[in-house]
């Protein structure tokens, strides 16, 4: 099984030339040992997400590098970025494990395009399966170099030596040499192939253990500086005059009153109108004095969304044939014992990261430096180079650990806006989007319509599966159930709203439709929904999460009166997940309360069980929003619910008890966990509601909430 390409995450890779930088590294870091690791072919291919066509054209990339300095300072470099998934911690653990040093002795440089190896971006749950391995490889190689050097110095066979706690040890003579001493005065570089041996997960000492956020203290004291906290001397605050509707054209502008304000700069460049001022209050005042006239065509509204998606397929974006086609679906449908045909609708939702998009830009002559929160620092560097007609080496993008993204910060909008204003102002400019801007001008998780037809024989085996997804995407579209006759197809649509990546992206829509439909087929066949799934599954690890999760949840125990159980799960981003939900219904009002949630998850050998639990429960809570109440409402090019008061996200009162069952597979490669755990929740809730009150819910969100911690359905 491989991961599906994420069409809304596709970006052309930039090339990186490593050789010329090696010398500069020693200049920057001082002498020492420097190890770099070539990206494995498999890693580069999967990382690109750009599908089969381009895999041969990818340059031979360097994934990661590591430096051990004369002072013993250990610095590892990665293009991955920290947006709350706590990979700064899990990647540091990987280095500590292989290099045999304490976690707190390592500095991890992330997302600074001048210092780190090229990276496509932090998305698609690729950090753990790819970057974790690569950092382990460079660290293991560095350890070997250090052991070699010590063996030479002592004149002994390296096989006798071991490494521990930042030193090379000779157990026979009880001698030891600290790493700092070994690297003194040396400049050693080594380029690694991708296939170096690693410590097996069963022997891990640091990796596999719960480690709390490495720089956690900076976050509880307010010391950490997020992108929106960055500042430079003489910096101005930028604000953008937004159009009245999407795709609008500027007809006329009156900016004179704003320009008369002291210290205020106004920039008009095509459809871009922005101001910069010495304080954000003055920038806001300037903005309020600007009068603009916009022209826009009529645009579709959320009230007609699903009808629109069915009618507006985009033929330019068509994929080359169906995602799956085998057997004869029509024939199997004709002879089926039970058949269900249904449609599932998925709304647009917003990421709403608590830190909105933000960027600080500074020009030095024709050199541009930008601090911004993005999952694609190199991609944003490319966007900036493009926007300002600069070669990429004139642009440096620096990504401080950011206030979340969830797939929502792939693009460089705020970075370009800040840089445009800074160029005009000849001073550094910071742009921080307002919440309303974040809800309006960022992009959304794609809405979708999914039509499914399934058929079952008299034995309870699925015989046919036809699945059409309009617009939401092809990630997770393939069924992992064992079905002889299949037709599965993604149909691109000209989206009425700007859409892009999201945690789990299209996999959430595809799992929702598939897992609710599975429930419908089980009921049509008179088979228990959990038994029905297991009966139709060959994949052993997926069966395991369903079976073990079901045992832990107590699936076979009788339900209390007016209580319902539901299950939903699948295979996503290389992880196996099954979510179980119990709801309690009030028959009189059809008000449903989620009593508890259990998610069983297998992501291979667990790197950091504490971080994993945090991610898994976090994904489930985020998933509650999309399952229960999040939906972007829009009309004629405007967003109607662009505030937290009108766009409801999960809050403390919305949370049922949530439990994680982690299946630690030390014999399997470690994979990501930030996305997969989100996919099972919505179908599990929908299926539990049906079990409790017999009302079948086929939309995300499932229904409008009436009361806190209780949801009204039916």
């Amino acid at each position: 099984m491989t991961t599906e390409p994420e069409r809304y995450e596709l970006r052309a890779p930039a090339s990186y030339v490593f050789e010329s930088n090696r010398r500069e590294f020693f200049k920057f870091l001082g002498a020492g040992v420097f190890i770099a690791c070539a990206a494995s072919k498999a890693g580069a291919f999967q990382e690109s997400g750009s599908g089969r066509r381009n895999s041969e054209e990818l340059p031979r990339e360097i994934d990661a590098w590591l430096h051990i300095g004369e002072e013993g300072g250990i610095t590892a470099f990665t293009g991955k970025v920290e947006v709350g998934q706590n990979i700064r911690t899990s990647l540091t653990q990987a280095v500590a494990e292989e290099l045999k040093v304490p976690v707190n002795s390592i500095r991890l440089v992330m997302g600074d395009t001048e210092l780190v190896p090229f990276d496509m971006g932090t998305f698609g749950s690729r950090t753990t399966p790819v970057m974790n391995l690569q950092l382990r490889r460079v660290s293991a190689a560095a350890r070997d170099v250090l052991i070699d050097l010590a063996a030479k110095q002592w004149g002994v066979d390296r096989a006798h030596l071991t490494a521990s706690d930042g030193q090379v040890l000779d157990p026979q003579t009880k001698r030891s040499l600290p790493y700092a001493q070994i690297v003194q005065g040396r400049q050693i570089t080594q380029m690694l192939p991708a296939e170096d041996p690693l410590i097996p997960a069963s022997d891990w000492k640091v990796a596999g253990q719960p480690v709390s956020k490495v720089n956690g203290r900076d976050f509880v004291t307010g010391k950490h500086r997020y992108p929106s906290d960055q500042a430079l001397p003489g910096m101005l605050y930028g604000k953008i005059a937004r159009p009245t509707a999407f795709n609008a054209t500027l007809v006329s502008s009156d900016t004179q009153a704003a320009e008369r304000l002291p210290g205020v700069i106004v920039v008009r460049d095509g459809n871009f109108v922005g101001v910069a001022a010495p304080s954000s209050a003055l920038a806001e005042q300037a903005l309020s004095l600007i009068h603009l006239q916009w022209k826009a065509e009529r645009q579709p509204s959320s009230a007609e969304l699903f009808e629109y998606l069915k009618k507006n397929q985009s033929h330019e974006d068509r994929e080359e044939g169906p995602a799956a086609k085998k057997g004869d679906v029509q024939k199997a449908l004709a002879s089926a014992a039970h058949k269900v045909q249904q449609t599932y609708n998925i709304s647009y939702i917003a990421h709403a990261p608590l830190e909105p998009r933000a960027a600080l830009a500074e020009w030095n002559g024709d050199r541009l430096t930008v601090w911004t929160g993005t999952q694609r620092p190199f991609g944003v560097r490319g966007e900036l180079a493009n926007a300002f007609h600069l070669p990429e080496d004139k642009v440096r993008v620096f990504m401080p650990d950011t206030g979340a993204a969830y797939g929502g910060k792939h693009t460089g909008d705020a970075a370009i806006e800040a840089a445009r204003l800074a160029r005009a102002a000849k001073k550094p400019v910071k742009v921080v989007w307002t919440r309303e801007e974040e809800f309006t001008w960022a992009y959304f998780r794609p809405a979708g319509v999914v039509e499914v037809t399934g058929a079952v024989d008299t034995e309870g085996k699925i015989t046919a599966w036809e699945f059409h997804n309009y617009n939401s995407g092809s990630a997770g579209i393939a069924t992992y159930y064992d079905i002889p006759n299949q037709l599965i197809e993604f149909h691109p649509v000209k989206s009425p709203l700007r859409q892009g990546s999201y945690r789990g992206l299209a996999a959430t829509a595809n799992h929702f439709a598939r897992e609710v439909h599975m429930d419908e087929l089980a009921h049509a066949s008179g088979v228990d929904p959990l038994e029905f799934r297991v009966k139709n599954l060959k994949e052993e690890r997926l069966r395991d999460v369903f079976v073990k999760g079901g045992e832990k949840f107590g699936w076979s125990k009788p339900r209390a009166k007016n209580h319902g159980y539901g299950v939903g799960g699948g295979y996503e981003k290389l992880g196996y997940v099954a979510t179980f939900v119990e709801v309690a219904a009030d028959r009189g009002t059809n008000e449903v309360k989620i009593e508890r949630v259990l998610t069983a998850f297998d992501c291979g050998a667990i790197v950091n069980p504490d971080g994993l639990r945090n991610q898994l429960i976090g994904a489930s809570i985020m998933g509650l929003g999309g399952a229960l109440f999040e939906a972007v409402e829009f009309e004629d090019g405007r967003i109607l619910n662009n505030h937290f008061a009108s766009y409801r996200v999960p809050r403390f009162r919305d949370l049922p008890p949530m439990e994680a069952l982690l299946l630690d597979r030390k014999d399997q490669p470690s994979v990501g966990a930030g996305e997969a755990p989100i996919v099972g929740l919505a179908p599990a809730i929908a299926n539990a509601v049906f079990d409790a009150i017999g009302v079948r819910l086929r939309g995300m969100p499932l229904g409008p909430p009436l009361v806190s911690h209780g949801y009204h359905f039916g």
Partner: protein
Amino acid sequence: MGSMKLVINGQAYNIDASPDAILLSVLREQLDLTGSKYGCGEGQCGACTVLVDGKARRSCQTPISALSDKSITTIEGLAKGDRLHPVQQAFLDEGAMQCAYCTSGMIMSAVSLLSFKPNPSEKEIVDYMQGNICRCGAQPRIIAAIRRAAAIERSRS
């Protein structure tokens, strides 16, 4: 514009701003106290929460004119030297954060809650923290951290 005296984290500042200037902007732009965060500017998310005379207040909704003769505490003023406030320590111990952008607002709200409810029930915590948004989904750990902090404070006093 005018000059106003504000007492923040025990220190007096003369602020050159109009009386309707918003506390959050003054903290972040004039005093370089960036621990209080902008999340919505509408009092809907709690990321900007500070203490005014010990009580939680949304700094994005607070004009500085309301603050003369008041004592303001921000996340930067909570620790005593190297010693973290019990709530800060409890958030660390419970790993009650992911991106941690909401953390300072969560901690300030929790300090406020514990100041008048030293041993809150889970329901009391949930009700009080309802106005603070965490998009990463760290709420269960935040609840655990507040309970732990309550226990630490009881043991210290």
